[in-house]
Protein backbone atom coordinates (compact mmCIF):
# COMPACT_ATOMS: atom_id res chain seq x y z
CA UNK A 1 0.00 0.00 0.00
CA UNK A 2 1.39 3.42 -0.99
CA UNK A 3 1.08 6.68 0.94
CA UNK A 4 -1.45 8.04 -1.54
CA UNK A 5 -3.76 5.08 -0.84
CA UNK A 6 -3.88 5.65 2.94
CA UNK A 7 -7.11 7.33 4.08
CA UNK A 8 -8.11 9.03 7.30
CA UNK A 9 -11.75 10.02 7.83
CA UNK A 10 -12.32 9.02 4.20
CA UNK A 11 -9.83 11.61 2.95
CA UNK A 12 -6.25 11.08 1.71
CA UNK A 13 -3.69 11.07 4.52
CA UNK A 14 -1.58 13.93 3.12
CA UNK A 15 -4.65 16.17 2.78
CA UNK A 16 -5.64 15.48 6.39
CA UNK A 17 -2.07 16.04 7.65
CA UNK A 18 -1.79 19.43 5.90
CA UNK A 19 -5.21 20.51 7.18
CA UNK A 20 -4.51 19.44 10.79
CA UNK A 21 -1.01 20.95 10.93
CA UNK A 22 -2.23 24.28 9.49
CA UNK A 23 -5.22 24.43 11.82
CA UNK A 24 -3.08 23.54 14.85
CA UNK A 25 -0.50 26.20 13.98
CA UNK A 26 -3.24 28.80 13.50
CA UNK A 27 -4.84 28.06 16.86
CA UNK A 28 -1.51 27.81 18.72
CA UNK A 29 -0.01 31.02 17.33
CA UNK A 30 -3.30 32.89 17.61
CA UNK A 31 -3.61 31.88 21.27
CA UNK A 32 0.05 32.81 21.93
CA UNK A 33 -0.47 36.30 20.48
CA UNK A 34 -3.77 36.70 22.37
CA UNK A 35 -2.07 35.67 25.62
CA UNK A 36 0.80 38.13 25.04
CA UNK A 37 -1.64 40.96 24.32
CA UNK A 38 -3.69 40.26 27.46
CA UNK A 39 -0.52 40.13 29.60
CA UNK A 40 0.67 43.39 28.05
CA UNK A 41 -2.64 45.07 28.88
CA UNK A 42 -2.46 43.77 32.47
CA UNK A 43 1.07 45.12 32.70
CA UNK A 44 -0.02 48.57 31.54
CA UNK A 45 -2.90 48.61 34.02
CA UNK A 46 -0.60 47.58 36.92
CA UNK A 47 1.85 50.33 36.02
CA UNK A 48 -0.98 52.79 36.12
CA UNK A 49 -1.89 51.30 39.48
CA UNK A 50 -5.57 51.01 38.67
CA UNK A 51 -7.52 47.82 39.10
CA UNK A 52 -10.37 47.99 36.70
CA UNK A 53 -12.64 45.44 35.15
CA UNK A 54 -11.38 46.53 31.75
CA UNK A 55 -7.97 44.93 32.44
CA UNK A 56 -9.62 41.47 32.38
CA UNK A 57 -11.67 42.10 29.24
CA UNK A 58 -10.66 40.10 26.22
CA UNK A 59 -11.54 40.76 22.60
CA UNK A 60 -13.79 38.16 20.99
CA UNK A 61 -11.03 36.71 18.82
CA UNK A 62 -8.66 36.49 21.81
CA UNK A 63 -11.26 34.54 23.79
CA UNK A 64 -11.90 32.23 20.84
CA UNK A 65 -8.23 31.41 20.31
CA UNK A 66 -7.56 30.88 24.03
CA UNK A 67 -10.62 28.65 24.32
CA UNK A 68 -9.55 26.59 21.30
CA UNK A 69 -5.93 26.07 22.32
CA UNK A 70 -5.37 23.35 24.96
CA UNK A 71 -1.82 24.62 25.58
CA UNK A 72 -2.93 28.12 26.66
Amino acid at each position, binding site marked *: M*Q*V*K*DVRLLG*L*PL*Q*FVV*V*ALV*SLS*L*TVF*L*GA*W*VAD*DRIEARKGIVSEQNTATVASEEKEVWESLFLFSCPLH
Partner: protein
Amino acid sequence: MQIVSILRSKFRDSSGYPYFYTHYAWVIVTIIAVMQMVGTSVRMSFGLFIEPLESEYGWTQNTISVAYAIASIVTAISAPVAGWVGDRYGAKATMSFGTIIFFVGMILTGTVTSPWQFYLYFGVFTGVAQAIFLVPLIPAAMIWFRRHLGLGMGIIMSSWGFGPALAAPLIGFLLEALNWRDAFWILGTSASIVMALLIVLFRDRPIDRGVLPYGHREGDPVLEKTRPRPEKMREYGTYMRKTAAFWNMSSIHFLGCVGHAVVLIYIVPFAVHQGLSLVMAAAILTVMSAVSVISRLFVPVLSENLGARTVMAVFYFLQAMPVLLLFWAHELWILYSFAILFGIGYGGETGVFPILNRKYFGHAPMGTAWGVQMMGAGLGMAFGGWIGGPIFDIFGTYDLVWWISIISSLGGMISIMLLESTKELIIPDWESNRAPPSEA
Protein backbone atom coordinates in the same frame (compact mmCIF):
# COMPACT_ATOMS: atom_id res chain seq x y z
CA MET B 1 -1.37 37.11 -41.36
CA GLN B 2 2.28 36.66 -42.43
CA ILE B 3 3.26 36.18 -38.79
CA VAL B 4 0.60 33.48 -38.46
CA SER B 5 1.97 31.69 -41.55
CA ILE B 6 5.49 31.79 -40.16
CA LEU B 7 4.35 30.49 -36.79
CA ARG B 8 2.38 27.75 -38.51
CA SER B 9 5.30 26.58 -40.62
CA LYS B 10 7.94 26.76 -37.87
CA PHE B 11 6.08 25.10 -35.04
CA ARG B 12 4.58 21.69 -35.55
CA ASP B 13 3.90 19.03 -32.96
CA SER B 14 5.30 15.49 -33.04
CA SER B 15 2.57 14.37 -35.47
CA GLY B 16 3.31 17.20 -37.89
CA TYR B 17 0.19 19.18 -37.11
CA PRO B 18 0.64 22.96 -36.68
CA TYR B 19 1.11 23.97 -33.08
CA PHE B 20 -0.41 27.37 -33.65
CA TYR B 21 -3.20 28.45 -35.99
CA THR B 22 -6.02 30.98 -35.98
CA HIS B 23 -9.05 29.80 -34.07
CA TYR B 24 -11.83 31.34 -31.99
CA ALA B 25 -10.19 29.67 -28.96
CA TRP B 26 -7.73 32.59 -28.92
CA VAL B 27 -10.64 35.03 -28.66
CA ILE B 28 -11.92 33.00 -25.71
CA VAL B 29 -8.45 33.03 -24.11
CA THR B 30 -8.21 36.80 -24.55
CA ILE B 31 -11.68 37.35 -23.09
CA ILE B 32 -10.87 35.19 -20.06
CA ALA B 33 -7.49 36.86 -19.54
CA VAL B 34 -9.03 40.34 -19.61
CA MET B 35 -11.97 39.30 -17.40
CA GLN B 36 -9.59 37.91 -14.80
CA MET B 37 -7.37 40.99 -14.95
CA VAL B 38 -10.30 43.36 -14.57
CA GLY B 39 -12.22 41.29 -12.06
CA THR B 40 -9.30 40.69 -9.69
CA SER B 41 -7.39 43.95 -9.99
CA VAL B 42 -9.65 45.88 -7.61
CA ARG B 43 -9.06 43.46 -4.78
CA MET B 44 -5.33 43.40 -5.48
CA SER B 45 -5.26 47.19 -5.12
CA PHE B 46 -7.17 47.16 -1.84
CA GLY B 47 -4.25 48.69 0.03
CA LEU B 48 -4.72 51.97 -1.83
CA PHE B 49 -8.13 52.47 -0.20
CA ILE B 50 -6.92 52.09 3.38
CA GLU B 51 -5.67 55.64 3.87
CA PRO B 52 -8.75 57.40 2.42
CA LEU B 53 -11.07 55.30 4.61
CA GLU B 54 -8.89 55.95 7.63
CA SER B 55 -9.02 59.71 6.97
CA GLU B 56 -12.76 59.91 6.45
CA TYR B 57 -14.00 57.67 9.25
CA GLY B 58 -11.09 57.27 11.64
CA TRP B 59 -11.31 53.49 11.30
CA THR B 60 -8.17 51.62 12.31
CA GLN B 61 -6.16 49.71 9.69
CA ASN B 62 -7.13 46.51 11.45
CA THR B 63 -10.84 47.37 11.07
CA ILE B 64 -10.40 48.12 7.36
CA SER B 65 -8.21 45.10 6.59
CA VAL B 66 -10.85 42.75 8.03
CA ALA B 67 -12.85 43.46 4.83
CA TYR B 68 -9.97 42.13 2.75
CA ALA B 69 -9.69 39.04 4.94
CA ILE B 70 -13.45 38.44 4.64
CA ALA B 71 -13.26 38.82 0.84
CA SER B 72 -10.37 36.31 0.68
CA ILE B 73 -12.16 33.76 2.85
CA VAL B 74 -15.49 34.21 1.02
CA THR B 75 -13.68 33.71 -2.31
CA ALA B 76 -12.04 30.54 -1.03
CA ILE B 77 -15.25 29.07 0.38
CA SER B 78 -17.30 30.08 -2.70
CA ALA B 79 -14.78 28.61 -5.13
CA PRO B 80 -16.12 25.02 -5.28
CA VAL B 81 -19.71 26.31 -5.58
CA ALA B 82 -18.67 28.72 -8.36
CA GLY B 83 -17.01 25.83 -10.16
CA TRP B 84 -20.12 23.66 -9.90
CA VAL B 85 -22.37 26.51 -11.11
CA GLY B 86 -20.06 26.99 -14.11
CA ASP B 87 -20.27 23.28 -14.98
CA ARG B 88 -24.05 23.16 -14.50
CA TYR B 89 -25.14 26.39 -16.17
CA GLY B 90 -22.19 27.27 -18.40
CA ALA B 91 -19.46 29.86 -17.95
CA LYS B 92 -21.32 32.59 -19.88
CA ALA B 93 -24.34 32.60 -17.56
CA THR B 94 -22.08 32.33 -14.53
CA MET B 95 -19.90 35.22 -15.68
CA SER B 96 -23.01 37.35 -16.25
CA PHE B 97 -24.14 36.66 -12.72
CA GLY B 98 -20.66 37.39 -11.38
CA THR B 99 -20.54 40.72 -13.21
CA ILE B 100 -23.87 41.77 -11.69
CA ILE B 101 -22.68 40.81 -8.20
CA PHE B 102 -19.42 42.69 -8.77
CA PHE B 103 -21.22 45.82 -10.02
CA VAL B 104 -23.67 45.82 -7.09
CA GLY B 105 -20.86 45.20 -4.59
CA MET B 106 -18.69 48.03 -5.94
CA ILE B 107 -21.56 50.56 -6.10
CA LEU B 108 -22.75 49.69 -2.61
CA THR B 109 -19.18 49.83 -1.27
CA GLY B 110 -19.09 53.44 -2.41
CA THR B 111 -22.01 54.17 -0.05
CA VAL B 112 -20.67 52.61 3.19
CA THR B 113 -20.75 54.56 6.42
CA SER B 114 -20.05 51.77 8.90
CA PRO B 115 -17.65 48.79 9.08
CA TRP B 116 -20.35 46.11 8.84
CA GLN B 117 -21.53 47.60 5.55
CA PHE B 118 -17.95 47.56 4.27
CA TYR B 119 -17.57 43.93 5.33
CA LEU B 120 -20.81 42.93 3.60
CA TYR B 121 -20.53 44.91 0.37
CA PHE B 122 -16.80 44.59 -0.24
CA GLY B 123 -16.06 41.45 1.73
CA VAL B 124 -19.00 39.28 0.71
CA PHE B 125 -20.20 40.67 -2.61
CA THR B 126 -16.81 41.17 -4.26
CA GLY B 127 -15.56 37.97 -2.59
CA VAL B 128 -18.28 35.96 -4.35
CA ALA B 129 -17.66 37.85 -7.61
CA GLN B 130 -13.94 37.09 -7.44
CA ALA B 131 -14.65 33.36 -7.00
CA ILE B 132 -16.79 33.48 -10.15
CA PHE B 133 -14.09 35.32 -12.13
CA LEU B 134 -11.33 32.99 -10.96
CA VAL B 135 -12.93 29.56 -11.03
CA PRO B 136 -15.37 28.72 -13.89
CA LEU B 137 -13.33 30.48 -16.56
CA ILE B 138 -10.39 28.06 -16.49
CA PRO B 139 -12.52 24.92 -17.09
CA ALA B 140 -14.35 26.96 -19.74
CA ALA B 141 -11.06 27.60 -21.52
CA MET B 142 -10.13 23.92 -21.22
CA ILE B 143 -13.24 22.92 -23.22
CA TRP B 144 -11.90 24.93 -26.15
CA PHE B 145 -8.57 23.06 -26.30
CA ARG B 146 -8.52 19.45 -27.43
CA ARG B 147 -4.72 19.67 -27.56
CA HIS B 148 -2.07 22.28 -26.76
CA LEU B 149 -3.91 23.27 -23.62
CA GLY B 150 -0.63 24.58 -22.19
CA LEU B 151 -0.47 27.39 -24.71
CA GLY B 152 -3.92 28.70 -23.81
CA MET B 153 -3.34 28.29 -20.10
CA GLY B 154 0.00 30.07 -20.30
CA ILE B 155 -1.60 33.20 -21.73
CA ILE B 156 -4.40 33.19 -19.16
CA MET B 157 -2.06 32.56 -16.23
CA SER B 158 0.31 35.33 -17.30
CA SER B 159 -2.62 37.78 -17.12
CA TRP B 160 -2.73 37.15 -13.35
CA GLY B 161 0.64 38.90 -13.15
CA PHE B 162 -0.40 41.89 -15.28
CA GLY B 163 -3.67 42.79 -13.58
CA PRO B 164 -2.37 44.26 -10.32
CA ALA B 165 0.55 45.97 -12.08
CA LEU B 166 -1.79 47.82 -14.43
CA ALA B 167 -4.60 48.46 -11.96
CA ALA B 168 -2.62 49.95 -9.08
CA PRO B 169 -1.40 53.11 -10.88
CA LEU B 170 -4.85 53.67 -12.42
CA ILE B 171 -6.60 53.33 -9.08
CA GLY B 172 -3.98 55.55 -7.46
CA PHE B 173 -4.66 58.20 -10.11
CA LEU B 174 -8.43 58.00 -9.53
CA LEU B 175 -7.97 58.36 -5.78
CA GLU B 176 -5.76 61.42 -6.27
CA ALA B 177 -8.16 63.07 -8.72
CA LEU B 178 -11.45 62.14 -7.01
CA ASN B 179 -12.59 60.83 -3.65
CA TRP B 180 -12.65 57.12 -2.79
CA ARG B 181 -16.43 56.82 -3.29
CA ASP B 182 -16.24 58.13 -6.86
CA ALA B 183 -13.26 55.83 -7.46
CA PHE B 184 -15.31 52.76 -6.44
CA TRP B 185 -18.27 53.87 -8.56
CA ILE B 186 -16.16 54.63 -11.64
CA LEU B 187 -14.16 51.43 -11.27
CA GLY B 188 -17.24 49.31 -10.65
CA THR B 189 -19.15 50.79 -13.58
CA SER B 190 -16.33 50.82 -16.13
CA ALA B 191 -15.09 47.33 -15.22
CA SER B 192 -18.65 45.97 -15.41
CA ILE B 193 -19.19 47.54 -18.85
CA VAL B 194 -15.95 46.02 -20.14
CA MET B 195 -16.88 42.62 -18.76
CA ALA B 196 -20.43 42.81 -20.17
CA LEU B 197 -19.04 43.52 -23.65
CA LEU B 198 -16.64 40.59 -23.35
CA ILE B 199 -19.44 38.28 -22.24
CA VAL B 200 -21.35 39.10 -25.45
CA LEU B 201 -18.42 37.66 -27.45
CA PHE B 202 -17.97 34.64 -25.19
CA ARG B 203 -19.14 31.14 -26.13
CA ASP B 204 -19.29 28.28 -23.64
CA ARG B 205 -18.23 25.62 -26.13
CA PRO B 206 -16.77 25.42 -29.66
CA ILE B 207 -19.99 23.87 -30.94
CA ASP B 208 -21.85 27.04 -29.92
CA ARG B 209 -19.75 28.81 -32.54
CA GLY B 210 -20.01 25.95 -35.03
CA VAL B 211 -16.32 24.99 -34.80
CA LEU B 212 -14.32 22.07 -33.43
CA PRO B 213 -11.99 22.48 -30.41
CA TYR B 214 -8.46 23.74 -30.96
CA GLY B 215 -6.17 20.86 -31.87
CA HIS B 216 -9.04 18.60 -32.95
CA ARG B 217 -7.99 15.85 -35.39
CA GLU B 218 -9.88 13.40 -37.50
CA GLY B 219 -11.07 10.54 -35.35
CA ASP B 220 -11.31 12.57 -32.13
CA PRO B 221 -14.70 12.43 -30.37
CA VAL B 222 -16.90 15.42 -31.12
CA LEU B 223 -18.41 17.37 -28.22
CA GLU B 224 -22.05 16.68 -27.48
CA LYS B 225 -24.48 19.26 -28.87
CA THR B 226 -26.32 19.61 -25.55
CA ARG B 227 -25.07 20.51 -22.11
CA PRO B 228 -24.01 17.47 -20.00
CA ARG B 229 -26.84 15.73 -18.16
CA PRO B 230 -26.91 16.58 -14.43
CA GLU B 231 -26.99 12.85 -13.59
CA LYS B 232 -23.80 12.24 -15.56
CA MET B 233 -22.13 15.25 -13.92
CA ARG B 234 -23.10 13.90 -10.49
CA GLU B 235 -21.75 10.49 -11.41
CA TYR B 236 -18.40 11.91 -12.53
CA GLY B 237 -18.26 14.22 -9.56
CA THR B 238 -18.43 11.12 -7.37
CA TYR B 239 -15.64 9.43 -9.36
CA MET B 240 -13.42 12.52 -8.95
CA ARG B 241 -14.06 12.92 -5.22
CA LYS B 242 -13.05 9.31 -4.63
CA THR B 243 -9.56 9.90 -6.07
CA ALA B 244 -6.68 10.97 -3.85
CA ALA B 245 -5.55 13.47 -6.50
CA PHE B 246 -8.80 15.47 -6.23
CA TRP B 247 -8.04 16.31 -2.57
CA ASN B 248 -4.26 16.27 -2.67
CA MET B 249 -4.10 18.85 -5.47
CA SER B 250 -6.06 21.17 -3.20
CA SER B 251 -3.58 20.72 -0.35
CA ILE B 252 -0.67 21.07 -2.79
CA HIS B 253 -2.12 24.36 -4.02
CA PHE B 254 -2.57 25.40 -0.37
CA LEU B 255 1.10 24.69 0.38
CA GLY B 256 2.31 26.46 -2.75
CA CYS B 257 0.27 29.54 -1.95
CA VAL B 258 1.47 29.61 1.68
CA GLY B 259 5.00 29.46 0.27
CA HIS B 260 4.60 32.59 -1.82
CA ALA B 261 1.98 34.50 0.20
CA VAL B 262 4.43 34.71 3.12
CA VAL B 263 7.02 36.28 0.85
CA LEU B 264 4.60 38.60 -0.99
CA ILE B 265 3.28 40.06 2.27
CA TYR B 266 6.43 40.23 4.39
CA ILE B 267 9.24 40.95 1.94
CA VAL B 268 8.50 44.70 1.97
CA PRO B 269 8.53 45.18 5.78
CA PHE B 270 11.56 42.86 5.92
CA ALA B 271 13.43 44.92 3.33
CA VAL B 272 12.53 48.15 5.14
CA HIS B 273 13.83 46.52 8.31
CA GLN B 274 17.11 45.91 6.44
CA GLY B 275 17.37 49.61 5.71
CA LEU B 276 15.77 49.97 2.29
CA SER B 277 13.37 52.81 1.51
CA LEU B 278 9.73 51.88 1.00
CA VAL B 279 10.00 52.63 -2.73
CA MET B 280 13.04 50.35 -3.18
CA ALA B 281 11.37 47.67 -1.07
CA ALA B 282 8.16 47.84 -3.15
CA ALA B 283 10.24 47.52 -6.31
CA ILE B 284 11.24 44.02 -5.13
CA LEU B 285 7.59 43.03 -5.53
CA THR B 286 7.49 44.61 -8.97
CA VAL B 287 10.57 42.64 -10.10
CA MET B 288 9.07 39.45 -8.68
CA SER B 289 5.74 39.98 -10.48
CA ALA B 290 7.42 40.91 -13.76
CA VAL B 291 9.60 37.78 -13.75
CA SER B 292 6.61 35.63 -12.75
CA VAL B 293 4.73 36.67 -15.90
CA ILE B 294 7.40 34.89 -17.99
CA SER B 295 7.23 31.61 -16.07
CA ARG B 296 3.41 31.79 -15.95
CA LEU B 297 3.46 31.92 -19.75
CA PHE B 298 5.85 29.03 -20.36
CA VAL B 299 5.31 26.58 -17.51
CA PRO B 300 1.99 25.14 -18.76
CA VAL B 301 3.59 24.52 -22.17
CA LEU B 302 6.67 22.94 -20.55
CA SER B 303 4.49 20.70 -18.40
CA GLU B 304 2.65 19.35 -21.45
CA ASN B 305 5.92 18.46 -23.12
CA LEU B 306 8.18 17.42 -20.23
CA GLY B 307 5.72 15.88 -17.78
CA ALA B 308 3.26 17.72 -15.54
CA ARG B 309 4.35 16.32 -12.18
CA THR B 310 8.06 16.75 -12.93
CA VAL B 311 7.71 20.37 -14.05
CA MET B 312 5.44 21.22 -11.14
CA ALA B 313 7.81 19.68 -8.58
CA VAL B 314 10.74 21.59 -10.12
CA PHE B 315 8.94 24.91 -9.86
CA TYR B 316 7.86 24.28 -6.27
CA PHE B 317 11.56 23.62 -5.56
CA LEU B 318 12.49 26.84 -7.38
CA GLN B 319 9.99 28.70 -5.22
CA ALA B 320 11.51 27.27 -2.02
CA MET B 321 15.25 27.53 -2.52
CA PRO B 322 15.73 31.26 -3.24
CA VAL B 323 14.10 32.06 0.12
CA LEU B 324 17.33 30.81 1.75
CA LEU B 325 18.98 33.99 0.39
CA LEU B 326 16.85 36.04 2.75
CA PHE B 327 18.84 34.77 5.73
CA TRP B 328 21.81 36.71 4.34
CA ALA B 329 19.95 39.54 2.60
CA HIS B 330 21.73 42.54 4.04
CA GLU B 331 22.52 44.12 0.69
CA LEU B 332 20.36 45.42 -2.13
CA TRP B 333 21.82 43.16 -4.80
CA ILE B 334 20.97 40.05 -2.78
CA LEU B 335 17.36 41.18 -2.37
CA TYR B 336 16.94 41.86 -6.08
CA SER B 337 18.64 38.58 -6.98
CA PHE B 338 16.19 36.89 -4.67
CA ALA B 339 13.29 38.69 -6.40
CA ILE B 340 14.36 37.40 -9.82
CA LEU B 341 14.99 33.81 -8.71
CA PHE B 342 11.86 33.62 -6.56
CA GLY B 343 9.73 35.15 -9.33
CA ILE B 344 10.61 32.21 -11.59
CA GLY B 345 9.33 29.60 -9.14
CA TYR B 346 6.40 31.72 -7.96
CA GLY B 347 5.16 32.22 -11.51
CA GLY B 348 5.29 28.52 -12.27
CA GLU B 349 3.40 27.39 -9.18
CA THR B 350 -0.19 27.59 -10.47
CA GLY B 351 0.07 26.97 -14.20
CA VAL B 352 0.36 23.18 -14.16
CA PHE B 353 -2.90 22.48 -12.29
CA PRO B 354 -5.15 22.65 -15.39
CA ILE B 355 -2.75 20.34 -17.24
CA LEU B 356 -2.79 17.85 -14.34
CA ASN B 357 -6.59 18.03 -14.24
CA ARG B 358 -6.70 17.14 -17.95
CA LYS B 359 -4.26 14.25 -17.42
CA TYR B 360 -6.22 12.82 -14.50
CA PHE B 361 -9.83 13.60 -15.37
CA GLY B 362 -9.75 13.91 -19.16
CA HIS B 363 -12.60 15.93 -20.64
CA ALA B 364 -14.99 15.62 -17.70
CA PRO B 365 -16.44 18.94 -16.41
CA MET B 366 -13.67 20.41 -14.34
CA GLY B 367 -15.38 23.23 -12.46
CA THR B 368 -15.79 21.56 -9.08
CA ALA B 369 -12.30 20.04 -9.11
CA TRP B 370 -10.73 23.36 -10.04
CA GLY B 371 -12.95 25.09 -7.47
CA VAL B 372 -11.71 22.82 -4.69
CA GLN B 373 -8.12 23.49 -5.80
CA MET B 374 -8.74 27.24 -5.80
CA MET B 375 -10.28 26.92 -2.33
CA GLY B 376 -6.97 25.43 -1.22
CA ALA B 377 -5.16 28.29 -2.93
CA GLY B 378 -7.35 30.94 -1.32
CA LEU B 379 -6.96 29.47 2.15
CA GLY B 380 -3.21 29.20 1.53
CA MET B 381 -3.01 32.89 0.60
CA ALA B 382 -4.99 33.80 3.72
CA PHE B 383 -2.92 31.55 5.99
CA GLY B 384 0.40 32.63 4.49
CA GLY B 385 -0.59 36.27 4.58
CA TRP B 386 -1.49 36.02 8.26
CA ILE B 387 1.04 33.68 9.86
CA GLY B 388 4.05 35.95 9.45
CA GLY B 389 2.39 38.59 11.63
CA PRO B 390 2.07 36.59 14.85
CA ILE B 391 5.46 34.91 14.33
CA PHE B 392 7.20 38.26 14.00
CA ASP B 393 5.27 39.70 16.95
CA ILE B 394 6.27 36.75 19.16
CA PHE B 395 9.89 36.19 18.10
CA GLY B 396 10.89 39.60 16.76
CA THR B 397 12.57 38.13 13.69
CA TYR B 398 11.56 37.07 10.17
CA ASP B 399 13.78 33.93 10.15
CA LEU B 400 11.02 31.58 11.22
CA VAL B 401 8.67 33.26 8.73
CA TRP B 402 11.03 32.34 5.89
CA TRP B 403 11.27 28.76 7.16
CA ILE B 404 7.46 28.52 6.98
CA SER B 405 7.68 29.53 3.31
CA ILE B 406 10.47 27.06 2.51
CA ILE B 407 8.89 24.14 4.34
CA SER B 408 5.50 24.79 2.70
CA SER B 409 6.93 24.87 -0.81
CA LEU B 410 9.07 21.77 -0.20
CA GLY B 411 6.10 20.01 1.40
CA GLY B 412 4.13 20.78 -1.73
CA MET B 413 6.96 19.42 -3.88
CA ILE B 414 7.00 16.11 -1.95
CA SER B 415 3.20 15.86 -2.20
CA ILE B 416 3.43 16.36 -5.97
CA MET B 417 5.92 13.51 -6.25
CA LEU B 418 3.47 11.27 -4.37
CA LEU B 419 0.58 12.03 -6.76
CA GLU B 420 -0.76 9.36 -9.07
CA SER B 421 0.94 8.71 -12.38
CA THR B 422 -0.35 10.82 -15.27
CA LYS B 423 0.08 8.05 -17.83
CA GLU B 424 -3.66 7.35 -17.85
CA LEU B 425 -6.92 8.74 -16.58
CA ILE B 426 -7.79 7.97 -12.97
CA ILE B 427 -11.56 8.07 -13.57
CA PRO B 428 -13.68 6.52 -16.34
CA ASP B 429 -13.31 8.36 -19.63
CA TRP B 430 -16.04 11.02 -19.92
CA GLU B 431 -16.07 10.78 -23.69
CA SER B 432 -16.52 7.03 -23.87
CA ASN B 433 -19.64 7.29 -21.69
CA ARG B 434 -21.83 9.26 -24.07
CA ALA B 435 -25.58 9.93 -23.83
CA PRO B 436 -27.89 7.72 -25.97
CA PRO B 437 -28.30 9.19 -29.51
CA SER B 438 -31.88 10.30 -28.76
CA GLU B 439 -30.59 12.68 -26.06
CA ALA B 440 -27.70 14.12 -28.10
